[in-house]
């Protein structure tokens, strides 16, 4: 009912499901333990055309519809959320940013190989001192005789340690001092990278990139980067977090349903206990709600329109849902879930990454409501309104 797919799409999805279940899911636990991206999984995803689903034929993709994108993202996350993030951040965040911003030369040099799954791309915005507030970014582009020079550091960037190219959000020097995008070959001179260990999504490479006077050509810099344009560019990142959460949560539910049927206490399966089957119902409702919001956003975005508040609402609900549902699964499994012998605790750790990833849900709530309220989401007054109103603790 939720997915209306053509015969061809359904057939593709069946093959994709089989790949996820037979090849990708069995690698998930070891990848999490070793904090290592399974390269074979990426190769298999490339072979089945996953990376190209998100892009038009002009760059070698197939331009899949929103329903199929949603289904494949969810199933891949169900198998291994870290692998899903790694593959999809590359093709659907970095790739989409490249498609939206860049000129033909970049499309062929970078986007086409990303869309074939041959190389990994990343989108480098977050810094040590600034995340949701791009106005505070310190990574800077300086004009030089030959073009530009890029200096600064980006941290907690998905895929950075394994990427061949980065789209970097930087401040452009000079009187207008706005934001700009730089397309950076990560093999360039002056670049150093390091991994950062994360609590979840450990199969996904994650780390910092430092730029020391990295030389860029004129053509590698796009100067017109407004806040609004940047927000729109990262919509695909939020869709990734949405379906990563849906996939992980559905996995948690599937495991919980099986457990409720098999595990016995007081003479019968625990599914007979009201709290147990009641909790399964809440989990199913929470997941269905997230999936439907995500499908709506995916449909809009696959048709090349901006999903605006639809994708923000989907991300807000889905990301937090993922944490709730995987927590509920931990309760379902009790002590078993707390043990590293089961997959349940990994699902919860993976789910945690979707809440702060990209734009955190706290920030998204302000971005959703401020326009309707006629207030700016970029201005926050100092906290000085209590004493002025006569309110005090004592």
């Amino acid at each position: 009912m939720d997915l209306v797919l053509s015969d061809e799409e359904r057939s593709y999805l069946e093959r994709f499901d089989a790949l996820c279940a037979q090849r990708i899911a069995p690698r998930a636990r070891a990848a999490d333990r070793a904090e290592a991206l399974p390269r074979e999984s990426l190769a298999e995803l490339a072979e089945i055309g996953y990376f190209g689903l998100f892009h038009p034929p002009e760059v070698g993709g197939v331009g899949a519809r929103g329903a199929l994108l949603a289904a494949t993202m969810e199933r891949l996350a169900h198998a291994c959320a870290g692998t899903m993030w790694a593959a999809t951040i590359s093709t659907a965040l970095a790739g989409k940013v490249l498609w939206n911003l860049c000129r033909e030369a970049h499309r062929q040099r970078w986007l086409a190989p990303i869309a074939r799954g041959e190389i990994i791309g990343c989108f480098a915005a977050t810094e040590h001192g600034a995340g949701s507030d791009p106005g505070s970014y310190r990574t800077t582009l300086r004009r030089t005789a030959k073009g530009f020079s890029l200096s600064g550091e980006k941290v907690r960037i998905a895929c950075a340690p394994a990427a061949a190219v980065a789209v970097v959000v930087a401040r452009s020097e000079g009187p207008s001092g706005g934001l700009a995008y730089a397309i950076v070959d990560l093999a360039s001179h002056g670049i150093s990278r390091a991994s950062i260990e994360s609590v979840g999504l450990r199969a996904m490479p994650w780390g910092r990139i430092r730029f020391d006077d990295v030389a860029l050509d004129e053509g590698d810099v796009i100067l017109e980067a407004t806040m609004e344009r940047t927000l729109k560019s990262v919509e695909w990142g939020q869709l990734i977090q949405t379906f990563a959460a849906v996939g992980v949560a559905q996995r948690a539910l599937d495991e919980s349903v099986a457990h409720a049927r098999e595990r016995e206490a007081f003479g019968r399966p625990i599914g007979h206990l009201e709290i147990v089957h009641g909790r399964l119902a809440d989990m199913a409702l929470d997941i269905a709600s997230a999936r439907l919001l995500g499908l709506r956003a995916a449909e809009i975005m696959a048709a090349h329109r901006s999903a605006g508040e639809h994708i923000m609402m989907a991300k807000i609900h889905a990301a937090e849902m993922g944490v709730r549902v995987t927590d509920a699964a931990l309760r379902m499994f009790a002590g078993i879930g707390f043990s590293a012998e089961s997959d349940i605790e990994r699902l919860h750790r993976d789910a945690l990454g979707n809440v702060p990833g990209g734009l955190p849900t706290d920030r998204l709530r302000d971005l959703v409501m401020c326009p309707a309220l006629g207030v700016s989401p970029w201005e926050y007054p100092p906290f000085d309104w209590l004493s002025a109103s006569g309110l005090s603790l004592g």
Partner: protein
Amino acid sequence: MSFDLSETESSARAGARAIAATHAAPSVPIRDAEARWDAALFSAMGREGLLGAPLPEAHGGGGRGALTTALLHEGFGHGSEDMGLAIAWGAHTHRVSVPIAALGTEAQRARLLPALARGDIVGAIAHDASGIVARREGDAWVLEGACEGVVNGPIASLFLIAARTPQSPSGRTVFLVDRATPHLHVGAPARMIGMRTALFGALTLSGIRLGDDSVLGAPLAGDAALALGRRWQRACLSAHWLGAMESAFERAVSCAKTRVDLGRPLARSQAARTTLADMRVRCEIARRLAYRAARAIDAADIDADKHAAMAALHIAAGAPLAARGAASIHGPDGASSDHPAARAQRDAAMIEVAWESVDHLRSMLGGALLGIG
């Protein structure tokens, strides 16, 4: 599934909103304050094609599907925020009229549907969990038992009653019972905390005698009638609540722009924006779930019951939170008895009594996931 509505569908919703704004909205505060049922208003809803929307055109209905009917509910909810009227309409149309249309004999349909569609007679259902028992005595059915809090009870002419038979533990028989039947008694309207524009009363059967022509469908096969009514009511009243919550959200946004708290408009409070954002998301989820349920009914999808139950659970669990959120935005004004925000809280408090229990829905859905219950 395309998420967009067709032109016809959007128009249906807009039309119902206009009808609600004209006929229902102006009198909601007084009807709520006086706990008054307005028969003329209900008849107007019948004339406007709302009550009979899903019933066959041949019997005075609109021949509409579940999605269009749900959209009528949504529009009406948006235009009136009258949840008592919502529950009255839901019981009358979805729990009583729709099962008659689907499972009734031609005689039952011809006799009852036109009057139900017009709102000339009001239908009520003695809800499923009641302890009413039916015994066979010769060629008559004898019903005994009672049911509390029957929606529309005090003003209904027609009762749809689900009874158990002693010799058969499972499988209920559904009867269509006229109010004038001897030994049928309806209690005075109960004083309720909310949904006060609808009337609730106890139904007592002290050995009423019915013929076979009172049976809806086949004896012991009444569950189909009950399930059909439930899924229609769940999908449509979820949409009705969606409309009401959207209206409440819009009012709260307007309020936040101007109401001054701690020296600045509430719009500048991040806490208030968080509350509003959650209301917004809750509405959007309600939309997706209600439309999915309605479309599933229209497509005779095997999961229609499940989708309808999910839509209802989201509302039953979420509407009280939405009402609480709106109240926090409106502040003192919203606590005044006549304010829609105050009424919304009281109406939400009635959901589990008048419509759906959260825990029952959880057990139903959980059982469906596990294949037990």
